[in-house]
């Protein structure tokens, strides 16, 4: 049982940087900012932020669905190609992730601004300027753009593992191409779909940078509010309470998603 010790460094890491911070978050969330006494006031204050919570979940959910719709065909197509092409295409999918997240988002600002690239281009043919930036659409665009690779990767990994003989077996039993997809390929890629949605939804629901750069005061997300509690409003207790609630909401969402894969299937989560 020596092997157990190999996990030691990680366990220490986790204790130091995950468990202890979680305890601190919990402590701040349940104490008063002035007196330091136990209180549920911070959690009770959440109801004022309900619309922001809902907006965050709503935008993250839409982004996840768009990522799935865009990402599934890509993942499927990559999986159909030869091994060399596959490696190349997979690298292309990963490529944007080599560039800083901040830079990628800022680039969209330059594109979408009222005086940005898109508006100045369509301005030349007499359209616009259109309100592209500071909209829900721009925030969703930013989320989809940034998190799409996280959808494609798990989908590709699952689709590539589907036994080609299952496809042949379905054809053998009378399925045309559409039926093969609907009856075999799609059901067997459910673990990838769940995993992909989780990997897009979780960072999207808690993001703040995208909404700050591409959104407006009307598109404030819960991540923004949490950030402001620590940086501008100096109320870490309220910020901690929000983080706690967000975390619980994410767990609930993941739990709901995993129900779709059934109990004894391979479940891949973060």
């Amino acid at each position, binding site marked *: 049982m020596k092997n157990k010790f190999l996990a030691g460094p990680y366990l220490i890491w986790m204790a130091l940087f995950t468990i202890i911070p979680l305890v601190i978050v919990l402590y701040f969330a349940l104490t008063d900012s002035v007196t330091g006494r136990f209180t549920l006031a911070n959690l009770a204050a959440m109801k004022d932020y309900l619309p922001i919570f809902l907006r965050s979940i709503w935008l993250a959910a839409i982004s996840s669905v768009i990522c799935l719709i865009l990402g599934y065909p890509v993942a499927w197509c990559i999986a159909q190609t030869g091994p060399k092409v596959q490696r190349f295409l997979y690298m292309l999918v990963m490529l944007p992730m080599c560039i800083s997240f901040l830079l990628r988002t800022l680039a969209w600002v330059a594109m979408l601004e009222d005086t940005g690239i898109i508006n100045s281009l369509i301005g030349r043919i007499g359209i616009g300027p259109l309100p592209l930036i500071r909209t829900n659409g721009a925030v969703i665009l930013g989320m989809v753009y940034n998190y799409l690779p996280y959808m494609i990767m798990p989908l590709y990994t699952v689709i590539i593992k589907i036994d080609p003989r*299952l496809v042949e077996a379905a054809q053998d039993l009378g399925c045309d191409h559409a039926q093969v997809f609907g009856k075999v390929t799609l059901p067997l890629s459910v673990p990838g779909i769940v995993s992909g949605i989780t990997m897009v939804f979780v960072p999207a629901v808690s993001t703040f940078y995208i909404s700050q750069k591409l959104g407006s005061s009307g598109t404030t997300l819960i991540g923004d509010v949490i950030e402001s509690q620590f940086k501008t409003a100096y109320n870490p207790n309220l910020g901690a309470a929000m983080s706690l609630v967000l975390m619980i909401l994410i767990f609930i969402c993941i739990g709901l998603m995993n129900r779709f894969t059934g109990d004894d299937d391979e479940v891949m989560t973060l």
Partner: protein
Amino acid sequence: MSKELIRLVDCCMAYDGEQVLDNLNLYINDSEFLTLLGPSGCGKTTTLRIIGGFQKPTSGTVLFNGVRINDVPPHKRHINTVFQRYALFPHLDVYDNIAFGLRIAKLSETEISSRVGEMLKTIGLVGFEERKVSSLSGGQMQRVAIARALVNRPNVLLLDEPLGALDLRLRKDMQVELKRIQQQMGITFVYVTHDQEEALTMSDTVVVMDKGVIQQIGTPEDIYNEPKNAFVADFIGESNIIEGVMLQDRLVELFGRKFPCVDSGFAPREPVDVVIRPEDVDIVPADSGHLCGTVTGITFKGVHYDIIVDFSGFKWLIQTTDFHPVGSYIGIRLGPEDIHIMKKSKYSGMFGDYSSYSAEYDEIGDSELEPAESEEAPGYEE
């Protein structure tokens, strides 16, 4: 009596310039149990996949009931396949796996239910309807795979090494069961295997293939008793293959000695390959033998002993129920029926010499497909 159902005419298949099938000509009769037999890479699975529609021959014609079906996709052929390693749908339970084809055909649920129920009875898995396929043992998965194909009542069932992953005992039981199902339902079976014993046990017709070429087509008895060349003789059972010269009809010279035989139709003094089956050799005391040699090895095989006898440098395998210790000097006698003459072929000299014999000889042929799961190791973990 039986009519022709499938015919392959001059079928060739090449991948990346490598010839996998070379001008294959084959016909399959209705309700026949035909086995494609050969070592791995001989083209037997490719032939099966061409019949199933999963591959198109690079040239040649595939006929079904006299109609060309080269371009008919698999889902439009009245042919079903039992895949190697079953290829059951892991996301469906046993019932839904078997019902898959019927649902695609849009049969009513009552019809589906009765046909699946009937099939479950045939394969002896009543009560397994709701089981996940991952919780089945190898033998059970095999049965489900067969049921999933047969429930569609195809004209032809293709089976690609269906018993390859089962242990020996279960394989024997399934051989009998498959043969029973085939006769009971009157369906044409095209069966692919590398196991010669399986082929001989089950088939009406055996097609022996090597390197993309059909070596011999015949009944199991024909193939065993009258092999056409050294490859077939060696692949089907054990054979001592000796160089001989045909002196005249029904007289052959071996080791400088004349033996009467039953074959004729060769040119005078034509060099030939002579097959002597190990079980046909009679062992006698050295002074009354046609040939005499020294025993150099003996292996106990249960029913008989395999002994290796050195006849002036050429080693024979002989099967006998009597014990002959290593070093004993024995004689053998060969009757005319024990000697089978074959024309020389490109396989001459490649097979039938037991000089490099090892006791594992009969395992070598079977090792190409490792049994991955056995009946004793069902995956019941949830």
